[in-house]
Structure formats: structure tokens, C-alpha cells
């Protein structure tokens, strides 16, 4: 069993770099065209655009669950067009993801859901137990850690999904509409959580169409429209 330690890797290599990347599904038109941008380490950016503009597709590209049909993509400095599953899993371990639909596993308790990224890395459970219970407490779910996700409210699931994304202290955090299911007050607190994570060294990319949320924090904005990306520094 490996020891469990937090060690964010700090370097100047962009965590994500796209060069003329395009994606099409099947024989249809390109849903994303000529994407050229980088996400620097310890940076903070919003990804915005109307519904259906391809925000989720872009996040899935970075996660490599959708493969680009053209262009060059590097993750953590590594060109990924021919990456094998093992290496891809290793890269994904450096990312935390908050899905729009949370993607919690319904047959596991909240505690087990949040601990999942550590469990699949085969860390010893005793090593991360305190870490997980503390993070759950921190997002206000300390009393509910032995509850199964189906009985939780949308906001609680959201916080659990965020906790799961944060537990490994990722180098890159991807969040897809992370404030979509919560009231404005909680949305502000969650944003603050992401900002604090960013200050601790994580690169953060938040996909949202909530303009009010973006106005709360002055950060770089990536705008997707008609399949093209416009960067508002």
C-alpha cells in the first residue's frame, strides 16, 4: 500500500494546451473548431457560452473522454493523441472533475464516494480517513457521510461531487455548472471554495452560463460561441 500525501506538482508547463483542435461527432459538422488556448498552472478561468455551445464537450475533451478529430492536445506537457489507458488514468489522477449531473455512485455512502479517487489509487483506507471526513465536514456534509446519495438534495449532491473532485488536491479542477443546483448564497460559498483551491496551487476551469457568478470573481473568461473560442483576458 502506498502512503497518502498531498504533493501538488508545481511547474510552468501548461496543464492543458490545445492547438487547432476540432471535434466532430460522426460525420456531422464540427461542434468545436480551431480551439487554440492554454490553461496555465495555478490559473483561474471561467468557461462560458450559451447552452449547447460545447462547454461540456470541451471539458470532456480535456478529460479525454471525447477524442479530438484534429489538432494537437497536450495535458501536463504530454501529447495525448496516442496515449494508452494506463497513462491516461495517471493523467486523470491529476485532475478533479465536478460533473453537471454529479455522477455520484448510488450504492456507496457519501464518505465512500468522496474517498473514491483515493481508493482507486489503492491508498490505504486508514491513511485518508481523517482527510475525507474533514473535507466532508468542511463542505457541510459531516453529519451525512454515511448516507447514500439518492436521499440527498441537489445541493448536497453538488457539495459531495465537489468534495470528491477536491480530495486528491488535483493540479487541474474542471467543474461543469458547479453552481447550477444551489441558491445564490451557497453558489458564492462554493465559488470561494474554488478560489481558495486555486490559491493553493490548483488550476481551475469552471464552465458556467451564470453571469452573476462570473461577476463575483475577476478572472480570465473563455467564451464559446458557434464552435469557436474567444478569450477575454
Amino acid at each position, binding site marked *: 500500500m502506498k502512503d497518502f500525501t498531498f504533493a501538488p506538482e508545481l511547474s510552468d508547463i501548461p496543464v492543458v494546451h490545445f492547438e487547432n483542435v476540432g471535434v466532430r461527432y460522426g460525420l456531422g459538422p464540427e461542434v468545436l473548431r480551431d480551439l487554440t488556448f492554454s490553461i496555465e498552472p495555478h490559473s483561474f478561468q471561467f468557461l462560458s457560452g450559451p447552452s449547447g455551445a460545447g462547454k461540456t464537450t470541451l471539458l470532456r475533451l480535456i478529460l479525454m*473522454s471525447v477524442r479530438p478529430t484534429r489538432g494537437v492536445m497536450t495535458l501536463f506537457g504530454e501529447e495525448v493523441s496516442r496515449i494508452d489507458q494506463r497513462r491516461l488514468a495517471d493523467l486523470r489522477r491529476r485532475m478533479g472533475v465536478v460533473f453537471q449531473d454529479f*455522477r455520484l455512485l448510488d*450504492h456507496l455512502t457519501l464518505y465512500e464516494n468522496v474517498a473514491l479517487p483515493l481508493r482507486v489509487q489503492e491508498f490505504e483506507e486508514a491513511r485518508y480517513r481523517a482527510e475525507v471526513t474533514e473535507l466532508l*465536514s468542511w463542505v457541510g456534509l459531516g453529519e451525512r457521510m454515511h448516507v447514500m446519495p439518492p436521499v440527498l438534495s441537489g445541493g448536497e449532491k453538488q457539495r459531495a461531487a465537489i468534495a470528491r473532485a477536491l480530495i486528491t488536491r488535483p493540479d487541474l479542477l474542471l467543474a461543469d455548472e458547479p453552481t447550477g443546483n444551489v441558491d445564490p448564497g451557497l453558489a458564492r*460559498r462554493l465559488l*470561494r471554495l474554488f478560489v481558495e483551491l486555486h490559491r493553493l496551487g490548483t488550476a481551475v476551469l469552471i464552465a458556467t452560463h451564470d453571469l452573476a457568478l462570473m461577476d463575483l470573481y475577476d478572472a480570465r473568461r473563455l467564451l464559446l460561441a458557434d464552435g469557436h473560442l474567444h478569450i477575454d483576458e
Partner: protein
Amino acid sequence: MTLAQGGGRDDGARRGGMRQGGDSPAAQRDSGRIERRPLPGRATIARLLARETPLVPVDSAAARALVAVIAILTFLAALCAGAAELVATNSAQWRAAVGSEATIQIRPQPQGDTEALVAQAAAMARETPGVLAAEPFSLGQSERLLEPWLGSGLDLAELPVPRLIELRLDPQSPPDLADLRTRLREAVPAASLDDHAQWLARLSNMAQTIVAVGVALVLLVLIATGLAVAFATRGAMAGNRGIVEVLHYVGAHDAYIAREFRRRFLRLGLEGGAIGGIAAIAVFVALGWISASWRASPAGDQLEALFGAFEIGTRGYLVMAGTALVAALVTAAMSDLSVRRFLAKSP
């Protein structure tokens, strides 16, 4: 929302950067507004957490059906293996028993002293190395042999009945029967030697055929088990596609996911294999018991003459248990293969 206070660990270094906002616990902790105390019931939590839920959810209905299929197939495979083992053991016993005997038959001579020929042939046989004993059947014994066919109160002296000499052979160094046959033909033309070779050949052919059929059936049933498990695994994977995706997203290697599935299917395989194997062994024990209780009856004697004693011995039970174990391992191997194929196509 109230952000619950964390444990009493000093994690200032880790959370030190979080200084923004009035209601962040880090901020509260830093300002010392909330006293630090350990989370209540942490020991209880630790105990609860010691056992991990399997990552692959247990679908009890499908699992029960699969266990039943594996149990039935294992039962059939173990029965076939047991039957093949029974035939193999009994035929070996027959062959050993029959192979250690030979018979000299003296055709009755209308003129001449048959008794003298019997004595001469017996003496020749005794002199042959490898023949342990040569016992001529007396007239009385021959009468008893023929009694069931010819009725009692028979006087063989009036009938031209062939006389028999029973030879017991040394199984370690069997005699050269061909040489004995030649010598007998020269010295006693009325004598013929029967070494049961024809019988033995037929018997062993039959036994080998039965054993081969049994082994083929075991293999077929094991293949059927493997295919059933492959389908079941594919179904389970398709049903758990969402879980597999999440596991991939949080950085699980394929080998890890495959291990989680394999662990579950090996348990189902062992369960089904154990049920089927134990049932098959119970059937053999019961049949052995029934045949033993029939032994004294004529029907039982007929059965025993056909099948020998209905006992497969320790080796037979080991063969059956081994078949069940192999069925469980086939289950694990096939589920592993199916899972890896599925994962290779998964995002």
C-alpha cells in the same frame, strides 16, 4: 448551510491559503472563534468505515440466477467426471483381476485318459515361470459350474465335458503365454489356452470410450459455463456502465476495475461451484449407499457385476471437487476476459 467544524488536526499549512470570506471554517479557525474539538464519534466512524462496500453493486436477482446456472452446470460436469472416474477405476480392477488369470481347457478324449492329460497340462503350466498356481477343476467343481444350466444330480462321467485348469499368474512378471500355448499344443493337442486377451481388449476399449465421452462432456459443460459467465459479465458491465465511467474519470486503471469485477464473479463462481460439486458428491454417496444396501439381492448382484462396487473412492471425490473448482476458475477467467474487452471499448 452550516459548515461543520473539522477535527482537531492542526492543518493550518494545508488550509492556510483560505483566508477569504467570513464563514469559511478555515477563516473561523484562524480567528479562533470556534473552539477546536474532535468530531464526535470518530471511533464509531472508524469502525463503520473499516469494511469497504464493493465498487460493483450487488444485483441480487441476477447474481442468484448466475449462481444457479453455475451450480447446475457444475453439478452436471462433476457427475460426468465422477462417472468417468467410476468406470476407469472399475475397468482397471476388472482388468487386473481378469489379467491375473488364464484358463487351460482340455477337450474330452473319446479314447485315452483325460485325467492324465489334465495332470500333464497342469504340470507343464506349473513349470512355466510366472505361473503362481495351476488348479485343475475336479469333476465335482465342474458339475457345480454346469449345474445352473444342466440341473442337479448330473454325472459328468457320462458326458464329454471339457475339463478346466485355472492358472493364477504373477502380475509382476507375467509368463510368456504364447510360448506355453505352443508347447501345450505340441505335448497335449487336446489342450487350449485362453488368456482372456480378447475380453480384456474389448473391456478396455469400452471403458476407454466411456471415459473419453465423460471427459468430453466435462469439457463441453465447462465451456458452457464459461460462455454463460461471459454473457452474464457483459450484462453486468452494461448495467454498470455509469460506474465504470466514473471509475475511469477518477483515475482507475483498467486492471483495478477488472479486479473488482473478477473478485465478485469469482465469489459467485465459487458459490455455484461449491453447490454443484457438493450436490454431485451427495448423489454419488447416496447411490453408493443404495447399491450397498442392495448388495445381497439378485438385482444388486447384477448391478455390481455390471458396474462393480458403486464407490469412487477418495480420488473420485477429489476429481469431482476439482471439477467444481475448475468451474469456479473458468468463471473468474471468463469474467476477467469479458471485463477487459468491455473496458478496452469504454471511454
